[in-house]
């Protein structure tokens, strides 16, 4: 059951790695949705590019039996996040909907959170963001443009969640399962990315995460992420569930 009341949801994502084809549509959708500055060649070379979601490509097996594997990585919205206790100003904290949120106004840019994050999904704005003149009017009005000197990261498209819950509240109905989609999950052509409410036992994501292929990234840190991965199925190797958990 879902209601539009704040704090009754636990938003999360289930990533079916088996379905990911590495097309990078999610990355582009995220860049456009969240007003992320264009990653120019210079920024990439200086290791200062910003991509809230990225598709990591890695190889399994040795040549000539090597297989390309893809895994999309975004902020894991950990229940026990290493980035949260170290922020001196509560610019990043855990809200009551299971999300790790970043408050841009509060951030002073100590970059302490980024040091602590083992998933490397936090990004620092070294310069004031700039867009070509032609793209000025393409910015998403729902998302803050981040000034220089602050951290940013995947927000689970919190503005979309807020919009849906506002609409549901004013209509006096509950948020339907699947009504809230993040930019990446709506752009995914193979439904590898699935967004929903883990508190609702009947939601699509709750059922998906019961799959025996499920695992979380970097289990050893005990971060308890809200992003659940479903392992790759390799028909040739007949590997069991959790094989991909050893990645990395």
């Amino acid at each position, binding site marked *: 059951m879902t209601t539009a009341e704040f704090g009754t949801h636990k938003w999360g994502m289930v990533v079916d790695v088996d379905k990911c084809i590495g097309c990078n549509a999610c990355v582009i959708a995220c860049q456009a949705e969240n007003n992320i500055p264009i990653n120019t060649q210079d920024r990439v070379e*200086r*290791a*200062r590019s910003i991509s809230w979601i*990225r598709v*990591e490509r890695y190889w399994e097996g040795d040549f000539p039996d090597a297989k390309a594997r893809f895994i999309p*990585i975004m902020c894991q919205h950990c229940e026990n996040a*290493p980035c949260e*206790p*170290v*922020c*001196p*100003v*509560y610019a990043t904290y855990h809200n009551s909907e299971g999300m790790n949120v970043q408050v841009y106004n*509060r*951030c*002073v*840019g*100590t*970059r*302490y959170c*980024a*040091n*602590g*994050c*083992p*998933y*490397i999904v936090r*990004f*620092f*704005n*070294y*310069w*004031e963001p700039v867009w070509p003149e032609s793209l000025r009017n393409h910015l998403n009005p729902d998302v803050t443009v981040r000034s*220089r*000197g*602050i*951290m940013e990261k995947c927000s689970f498209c919190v503005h979309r969640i807020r919009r849906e819950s506002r609409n549901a509240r004013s209509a006096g109905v509950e948020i339907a399962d699947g009504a809230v989609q993040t930019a990446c999950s709506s752009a995914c052509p193979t439904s590898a990315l699935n967004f929903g409410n883990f508190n609702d036992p009947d939601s699509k994501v709750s059922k998906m995460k019961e799959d025996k292929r499920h695992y979380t*990234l*970097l289990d050893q*840190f005990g971060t308890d992420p809200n992003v659940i991965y479903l392992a790759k199925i390799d028909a040739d190797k007949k590997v069991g569930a959790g094989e991909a958990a050893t*990645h*990395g």
Partner: protein
Amino acid sequence: MQQRRELDQVYTNRKLLNGQLDTPKWWLPTVSILGVVVLIGVVVIATMINKGLGVTGLARPVYWGLFITTFVFWVGISHAGIMISAILRLTQAEWRRPVTRAAELLTVFSLLTALVFPLIHAGRPWRIAYWIMPYDISRGIYPNIRSPLIMDPVAISTYLTGSTLFLYIALLPDLGNLRDRTTGWKNAMYTVLSLGWRGNPRQWKMQTVGGILLSALMLPIFVSVHSIVSWDFAVAAAVEGWHSTIFAPYFVIGAVHSGVSAVVTMMALMRWLWKWDDFIRPEHFDALARLLIVVATGWLAFTFLELTFALYGQDAPEIALREMQMFQWPWNALFIIFFLTAYAIPVPMWLFKRVRTNIALMFWTSILVNIGMWLERFLIIVPGLARRTPFVYTWEAYRPSAVEWTIFIWSFAWVTFLMLLFSKFFPLVPLFEQKESQVFTEDVMIGRAKIPAIIREAD
């Protein structure tokens, strides 16, 4: 042991007040050059704040670099003051007397410098007041006291307040002395600053009790300040090389190592610049070097433990990090320089009394220690971040930029500049301590030689 001249009070006054009552020839040119460097540094800092942190060499995944290293370095140097003036005062080590003020001064100025770094390294330094001061408690947003970055300013400002008071209380008798020897605006300044010091028994008693109380009150700070600085790193559970349980005592003992070495450097400079051969004597260097041997060896044990912890746990990522620190270019070169300068060269040299009483050798070895201790912090902070972890996709991306190096050099010029400015108005060797030590010292005759014996330490 060398034979010592008996120093009468007139001679002590004349020699130790020569900075205030006359100006040494080298003073103005040195201060001017340092002033220019300080000014350049200030302009560079202002430019960096204006343009943004893009002007530094920082890049993912190395989010902390030269600034935090230098911050830890200066906080380490500041431990000199509390070691020399509080601990040695409470343990009644007589040889501390001529260096107490210089050590306290080093504490105050290095803390002032250290505080600059966490402020300017932040992305939005202009919001730092919001950061440290819980001014908006009415809005329900209190600073996150779980974060060591909140404990840092609390500990450091406590330390700074305590040290400044300590310095001032110890300065009172000398200020009274200067008031009586100056005229004009200087006299007016010293009159106000000396708070009506007349040197009567009641004032002496209060001054002594105040000093002892402050020493005792500052003892907890001796442990807390650098422990908290070490937690900046130790709480980052996902960073190998940082999340170590031994960091607090390791950092504290490392701080004493670098701080006391900095005092040795400073004593040698004071002896040369103001020609205070009668006051800062080879015995003092000897005593400090013996203290340093113990401290440095304790510190070495911690270093060894830190490097070998990974072997106990067989923790693959941490072993990989240690391999990178010790065997991979360019970290291996830094590691060798670090080990040679922080321990392997100076400490065996100090084992020889001829070295301990040789001022030039003590000067250069103490400089070596501080090069090594700076590198130690750098080797903890940067490789810990630059390491290759499962999800990092760029690494070893950090190369300090010219802006960072300029600000690094600025910090040294700034501390020296403040010291020399202070020396123009206040005596660097406490006159009253010097005279008191003469009272506590009696001479014994061994054969024909008159040998100073310190009676306070005998009982």
